[in-house]
């Protein structure tokens, strides 16, 4: 495999950071938002410009500083990182547009702070995606935790305060308490932390030690919201909806999942996981999370909380896919990073648009809303289809591969989990859509007149809903990247 020295990954990480001083010193909101867009476009084009190289099997590398012997702060762009970076960078742009509509529509305070920390959070997300080793990944992981704190507590009221504390306690507590010692232990065992395709921990420690390390990593990256370390995610829903949309459906939570996938494949390696039977363990943890979260979601009335629990379940699909240790399973899991991102962000955008237009947060107050906001609710339907895994939305493709993966790995129990979960997904999403459109006129809570949210809110959600559909028919380059990643990790 060929590596190419390139400054592009570093640029992709730095651009959102560099734009922060400009955002802070901008004179008018319009100038500020223009700069956000400039940064988002530049970043997306840098990320896109790296795709051909990655698809042709090359890897872009860039070392920033030598900090610890054998462990530099360095970037490397491979298929898995590329896929995640592409999802995050493209959705940042859409979310920026949506943020303008949402934040101005609600006349939120401290918008400059909001846009600045958003940019920092995106910089950290890129850093995680392009990390060459665990230390770099940890660095950006922590940066993301800290940068999202002011976003989660944006409203600065009593509720934000409790949620902010919970957020930090879960996220920083686990990363310092579990990941940090596990990381140093790994360094002590093997003398390196650089992710390699087949892992580097094989033969460095006993089976019980490896099991303990695995648990420390899987639970330590609490951003992946594996039960019982999921409590922060529903709490973080007090944030403004664009934050929930991009960070708590895409960037933050996917960073958690991405980190776990990286550690499982790049440090333990598929072979080691298989030989120690650790793959099954991962599957069991993920399955429990999927089923529990879906059941809790059934009982939620607050739409954003429902979406949060749905996210918790869907995140574990990705981990489950990798835990299957089969090429198809990994393809499905990795592909689900992209599919779930587009589907879930649509749903969050819809929840936000409903809030901006009507001020409603609860599902019980949304009866008949389809007449009032037909575009939004159609997009919601598409997003729900994608999350449930039904055609014509992209979620079908990743779920299809996950199911194939269970057959390939001969894990029929996991197949049952996936199917039950799909039913549950349909059970908590479809009534919302049904009641929005097909309710008797006397029960409808809204007058029969179309009044959508501002265009800045509606256009992004239509866009992401369309992309969700397009991704089923033309899933490139995500599909190729996912296949490449799976092929690398399984050595096939």
């Amino acid at each position: 495999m060929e590596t190419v020295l390139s400054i592009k990954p570093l640029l992709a990480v730095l651009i959102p950071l560099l734009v922060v001083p400009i955002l802070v010193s901008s004179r008018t909101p319009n100038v500020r938002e223009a700069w956000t867009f400039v940064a988002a476009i530049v970043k997306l084009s840098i990320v896109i410009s790296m795709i051909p190289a990655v698809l042709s099997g090359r890897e872009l590398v860039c070392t920033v500083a030598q900090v610890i012997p054998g462990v530099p702060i360095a970037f490397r762009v491979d298929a898995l990182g590329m896929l995640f970076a592409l999802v995050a960078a493209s959705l940042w742009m859409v979310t920026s547009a949506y943020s303008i509509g949402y934040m101005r529509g609600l006349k939120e305070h401290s918008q400059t702070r909001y846009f600045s920390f958003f940019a920092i959070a995106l910089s950290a997300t890129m850093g995680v995606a392009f990390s060459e080793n665990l230390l770099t990944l940890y660095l950006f992981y922590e940066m993301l935790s800290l940068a999202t704190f002011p976003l989660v507590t944006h409203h600065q009221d009593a509720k934000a305060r409790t949620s902010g504390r919970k957020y930090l306690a879960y996220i920083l507590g686990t990363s310092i308490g579990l990941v940090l010692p596990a990381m140093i232990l790994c360094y002590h065992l093997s003398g390196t932390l650089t992710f390699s395709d087949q892992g580097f921990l094989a033969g460095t420690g006993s089976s019980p030690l490896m099991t303990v390390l695995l648990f420390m990593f899987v639970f330590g990256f609490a951003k992946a919201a594996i039960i019982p370390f999921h409590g922060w995610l529903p709490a973080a829903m007090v944030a403004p909806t664009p934050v929930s949309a991009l960070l708590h459906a895409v960037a933050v939570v996917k960073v958690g999942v991405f980190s776990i996938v990286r550690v499982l494949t790049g440090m333990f390696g598929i072979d080691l996981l298989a030989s120690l039977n650790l793959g099954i363990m991962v599957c069991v943890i993920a399955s429990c999370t999927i089923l529990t979260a879906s059941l809790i979601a059934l009982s939620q009335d607050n739409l954003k909380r429902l979406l949060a629990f749905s996210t918790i379940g869907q995140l574990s699909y990705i981990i489950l896919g990798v835990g299957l240790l089969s090429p198809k399973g990994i393809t499905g899991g990795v592909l689900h990073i992209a599919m779930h991102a587009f589907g879930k962000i649509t749903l969050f955008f819809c929840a936000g648009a409903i809030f901006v237009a009507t001020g409603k947060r609860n599902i019980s107050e949304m009866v008949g809303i389809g007449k009032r906001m037909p575009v939004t609710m159609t997009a919601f339907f598409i997003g729900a289809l994608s999350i449930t895994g039904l055609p014509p939305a992209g979620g079908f493709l990743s779920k299809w591969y996950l199911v194939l993966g269970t057959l390939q790995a001969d894990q029929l129990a996991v197949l049952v989990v996936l199917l039950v979960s799909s039913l549950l997904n349909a059970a908590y999403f479809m009534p919302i859509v049904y009641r929005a459109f097909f309710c008797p006129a006397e029960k409808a809570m809204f007058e029969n007149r179309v009044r959508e949210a501002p265009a800045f809110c509606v256009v992004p959600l239509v866009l992401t809903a369309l992309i969700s559909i397009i991704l089923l028919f033309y899933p490139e380059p995500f599909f190729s990247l996912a296949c490449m990643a799976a092929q690398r990790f399984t050595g096939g």
Partner: protein
Amino acid sequence: MSHHYPALLVTVPLLCALFISIAGWLKRRLCFPIAVAALSVATTVSMGLLWRVLKEGVVLYRLGGWEPPWGIAYRVDHLNALVLTVIAVVALLNLIATQREVKEAFSEKIGAFYTLYILLVTGLFGIVVTGDAFNLYVLLEITSLTSYGLIAMGEDRAPLASLNYVYMGTIGACFYLLGIGYLYMVTGSLNMTDIASILPGLHHSRVLVVAFIICMVGVWLKMAFFPLHAWLPNAYTYAPAPVTSLIAPLMTKVMIYVMIRLLLTVFTPQFIFSILTLKTTVVYLSVIAIVMGAVLALGARNVKKMLTYVIVAEVGYMVGGAWLGNRAGLTGAILHIANDALMTLCIFLAVGNVMYKVKGYGFDDFRGMFTRMPFTMMGFTAGALSIIGVPPTCGFFSKWYLISGGIEAGHYGFVAALIFSSLVNTVLFFKIIEIGYYPNGNVHHGEPAPLRAMGEAPLSMVVPLLIVAAGLFGVGLYTGDIVTYVINPIIPAAIVH
């Protein structure tokens, strides 16, 4: 000229201290410029020394041309050169950052203040640069006496706190002197390298063990190693802010240097880690120090008190790291001397700025500070992140080495204590950051936040703070080079792992 660097480091500030006290009578305006000049020269010289040591190795200097072991020798290797540079930089930055405060708070006593300030720094330079165990004691007394005076200049309870410090500090210094006395009894020498060359024949002498333990207890008392820390929290809390931000970063760290110097150069690792069986015990003591420091910090009622207990915990980090007796642990301890000095300076400068504006250091005084003093709070956050140990700040990397040292030595109690302390630090600092982040009263959703006038501290206070804050990241990113070129040569080749 460069040949005389080691002597200049002590003599220039010493003479300047004299000039400052004269200027205090004649022309008060001159006190500050002279002090800046003295420390600028010292900073240049210490950096020159570090450069020379890096290029040529150990620098030896004989005061008055007397041959050691009869005369006093100054011996500068990588360890002193590093610590000297840290002292000079910290003292100079703090001097500039606190000028406004000093001018307003001590307008009458400005001559006395700067004389003591420079004498204190002179003493610290002397302690670090000297290669003579008794000379070290003399300079230790200079530092201690000046610091008693400086601390006593603080608020109401400061004289009492200072008196307490006088008692404990004197006992500590006496213990050290007594230990050196015993050592002189058996070796007949006071020169450190000379003692080290005589000691191998005496390794099983009881006097040596007694001398060592008495020396250590003295040094531990001076560095506030739990449970010998009782003097520190009050003394540092009630001292004036400009003094706290000088003493807190430097005094304990210089005493850590003295301990490491005694371990590595005087008594040699072979004696301490192979012949004495104290290693594990001392690491456990440091575990207790770290845990207790963290717990006491949680109970503190104001920001300054809280930070002093954080210092107590940090002392535990370094003592434990040094006593692990392996390469990673020692690297961590030495790296932490520099890092902790910088981050303590950063955090105390930030607190000093807040105190300058609101005249208080209770938790509630930080309310709404992110809006009111955004740059100061940026500095505060940077310092806090470094103390918590978030990469890429320097605090993370020293913690990394300390934890690896603990894992390598199989001392999981120490590892657990470090993690525990990091978690507690997160709670401590985010408590303040949260208070600073939320405005007075509740913001109602959808309404603009109540307007608060931005009242940042003057530029002369903010700029040095931000320089230090940026330094935390810079030093962190250059950890690799610092460890390779400066710290690796310090650790004796006998310690392989």
